[in-house]
């Protein structure tokens, strides 16, 4: 590949100021949040529109140029690191809130728009996006959808947002065609409903880790800001009790009692589990009813009520970011994924075995949050680079391997530096279909090669 020639080709599409092959710029894109080793792209471009993305993909096909796609850059499992070099698209320049429709309660954004920006704009109109990942202000809507992300915020009520609230997408196929999904697939029809004619092609992109198309726009269901919200906190001594609480909260399917229910345990204080609860309601009576019910449920399962400000701090800084983030070292999430509602304690037991008994690692959290009829679980290690990097990778690989053997459904897979080595061979005919789809949509295998689909 003649880098200079390729840069000129891309510059003809996005302008010279929006493409770079300077070493200084490239190294700035070489890592995500994970301890995965750095991967330096050959060049980086910043498209500003779907048509620019389309033109880039047509050009990349002619040149057989690998293209990787990055949102806010904060993936936890090497989801976009350019394992084969090539062009990295920084989608952050596509950050506009395109439309807020307060009649249909929808918001349409460019994929590089952050949750922070979207929620800020919505709140000016009395609306909010209630279901969102935990994370910092850099996290983009597109990045969350493409990895089907989720965090504890609002998940108990609404599920993982990357799957539940998306009403339609616009994306660019690996070959450059621009596609719209859901009701928005019809010319002139707004994206008010995810399911249009035929299969759910919105779902095709959700969780695709960028391998089947480049997300350029998304329309989301939004909600009025609730009139009332409150927080509760409880401590538990046993994950079996936490599991019972999660079961009871999500049993009234469709009318879950909490907006968010999350619990965690530190490796330095085994047996002390803190649960954080966020409640909301459009009416104070509803809120009070839910609080009363939650107190009953937690009390029944040996929960002791604690300081609610812990929960308030945790949940109100969702998009602004949590304080004291790296006080114990930089983060690595491992063993993350989803499990059925009755299996929580067995995963905690394996975590204890690996973290506390085998490696005696003092800076690790096991946590879980409910979604309707299931748990999302994680182990969260804090470490120092470069001294503890090797040990962290050893622990992390073991945890991933064990959890996947126990059939956790991982949030994402990523590439060879992520969970792909542990998933390989476990997906059967589904994976073969995915491969066929990938081949049909991306015949030259240029979009995110090496990620998710081998």
């Amino acid at each position, binding site marked *: 590949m003649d880098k200079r020639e390729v840069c000129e080709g891309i510059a003809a599409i996005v302008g010279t*100021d*929006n493409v*770079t092959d*300077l*070493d*200084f*710029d490239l*190294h*700035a*894109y*070489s*890592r*995500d*949040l994970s301890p995965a080793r*750095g991967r330096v792209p050959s060049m*980086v471009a*910043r498209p500003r529109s779907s048509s620019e993305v389309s033109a880039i993909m047509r050009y990349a096909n002619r040149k057989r140029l690998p293209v990787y796609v990055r949102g*806010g*850059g*904060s993936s936890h499992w090497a989801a976009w690191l350019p394992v084969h070099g090539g062009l990295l698209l*920084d989608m*952050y*320049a596509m*950050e506009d809130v395109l439309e807020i429709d307060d009649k249909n309660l929808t918001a349409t954004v460019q994929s590089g*728009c*952050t949750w*922070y*920006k979207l929620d*800020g704009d919505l709140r000016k109109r009395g609306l909010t996006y209630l279901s969102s990942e935990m*994370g*910092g*202000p*850099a*996290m983009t809507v597109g990045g969350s959808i493409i990895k089907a992300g989720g965090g504890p915020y609002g998940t108990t009520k609404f599920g993982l947002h990357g799957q539940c609230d998306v009403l339609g997408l616009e994306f660019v196929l690996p070959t450059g065609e621009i596609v719209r999904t859901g009701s928005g697939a019809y010319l002139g029809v707004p994206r008010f409903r995810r399911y249009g004619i035929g299969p759910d092609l919105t779902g095709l992109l959700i969780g695709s880790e960028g391998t089947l198309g480049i997300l350029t726009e998304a329309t989301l269901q939004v909600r009025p800001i609730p009139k009332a919200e409150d927080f509760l906190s409880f401590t538990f001594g046993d994950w079996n009790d936490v599991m019972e609480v999660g079961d009871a909260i999500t049993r009234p399917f469709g009318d879950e009692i909490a907006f968010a229910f999350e619990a965690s345990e530190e490796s330095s204080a085994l047996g002390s589990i803190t649960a954080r609860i966020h409640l909301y309601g459009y009416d104070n009576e509803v809120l009070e009813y839910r609080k009363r019910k939650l107190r009953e449920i937690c009390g029944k399962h040996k929960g002791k009520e604690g300081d609610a400000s812990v929960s308030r701090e945790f949940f109100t800084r969702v*998009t602004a*970011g*949590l*304080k*004291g*983030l*790296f006080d114990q070292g*930089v*983060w690595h999430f491992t063993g993350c994924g989803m499990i059925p509602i009755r299996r929580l304690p067995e995963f905690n037991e394996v975590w204890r075995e690996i973290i506390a008994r085998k490696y005696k690692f003092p800076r690790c959290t096991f946590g879980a949050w409910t979604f309707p009829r299931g748990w999302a679980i994680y182990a969260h290690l804090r470490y*120092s*680079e*470069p001294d503890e990097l090797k040990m962290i990778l050893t622990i992390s690989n073991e945890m991933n391997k064990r959890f996947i053997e126990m059939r956790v459904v991982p949030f994402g897979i990523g590439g060879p530096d992520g969970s792909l080595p542990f998933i390989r061979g476990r997906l059967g005919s589904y994976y073969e279909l995915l491969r066929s789809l990938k081949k049909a949509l991306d015949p030259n295998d240029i979009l995110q090669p090496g990620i998710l689909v081998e």
Partner: protein
Amino acid sequence: MSPLSSYAQEIMKCGRCGYCLGGYTAETCPARYVIGFESGAARGRMLAARAMLEGRLENSPKLIQRIYTCFLCGACKTKCEDAARIDTVEIIRAMRAEVFSQGINIPEEVEKLGTALETKRNIFASAPEKRMAWITPDIHVDERAELLYFPGCVSSLRFAEIVESTARILNTIYVDFSTLGVSEWCCGNPLLLTGQYDLAREMARHNVEEIKRRGVRHVLVSCPGCYRTLSQEYSKLLGFAEMPFDVIHTSQLFHHVAAEGKMPFRKMPQEVLTYHDPCELGRLSGIYEEPRELIQQIPGITLVEMDRNRERAWCCGGGGGVKIVYPSQASKVALARLKEAESCGATGIVSGCPTCKWNLNENLAAAGSRLRVVDLSELVYSSLTR
């Protein structure tokens, strides 16, 4: 140990969370705003710094260009206080010191700055005696006074109205002051910002010796860069556990006098003004409220806030030496700030920094703005009964 390697551990603390970027391109980091790429923001710069430490980045004119395109406004440092508490400003300055120490591909403007300060001891290479041109016969200076006024290069050599206003306020409120006269050298801040630590140390040593020789205990400054350098950097540069004098910014002194009811304000025509926080006075020194309270005490003035204020304030574009090295980038940042000021309903911007006044004023025409930009001292002086 090279300048950058002493920060190796701190650089590794970056968890790449992206707090430093803010929630949208134009929210937090002016360098990211003008460059567009991740390398503009602190998260990218920490990865680049790591690559430099590990010998994976070669010195080239392009590399130097990126290193000198940070406004050192401290917005990322403030954001990072919630995350890894990395002193990003120190590290980015150390990156500059690292490349400067290699002496290769240094931007011409940076070298010119060093030469000006080495030969004329001011950033404009003006004749040293021009520093005192603002002292007219009707301004009373008492060379025995315990308060020493240190106007700084930009105020005394480009914006004499700031220095004159300050001196006349001091005369009006009967606060005696002395000066270093032609013995005042640049505080050294532009050298620290551009990685020229040895010369900065020489400037610091000279100024401290001159101040000590006069036996003064209080130094008054108009410039936030001088304020931060004299109050925070000199002790580090010279290895002092405690400085032999304290440093006061004009906004602090005038606020103190006004709070005691001793500032003889007169009724001013009704005007809506906004206050622009200079980075080195606000985020990097923690002075936010004194200037605001002072403005609010002036009869007739209504203070309104821009959307981004105090620790969230957007840089004027004049910081970090970018105005000297890449003036067009400094302009782009100023235009964004002027637009923000227009949208908050103000007819004028008050700042407490001559460089902010310089950069914002210089871009008014390009912005098509009719705002007036004044220094706090000018505003206060114009509102006094004389």
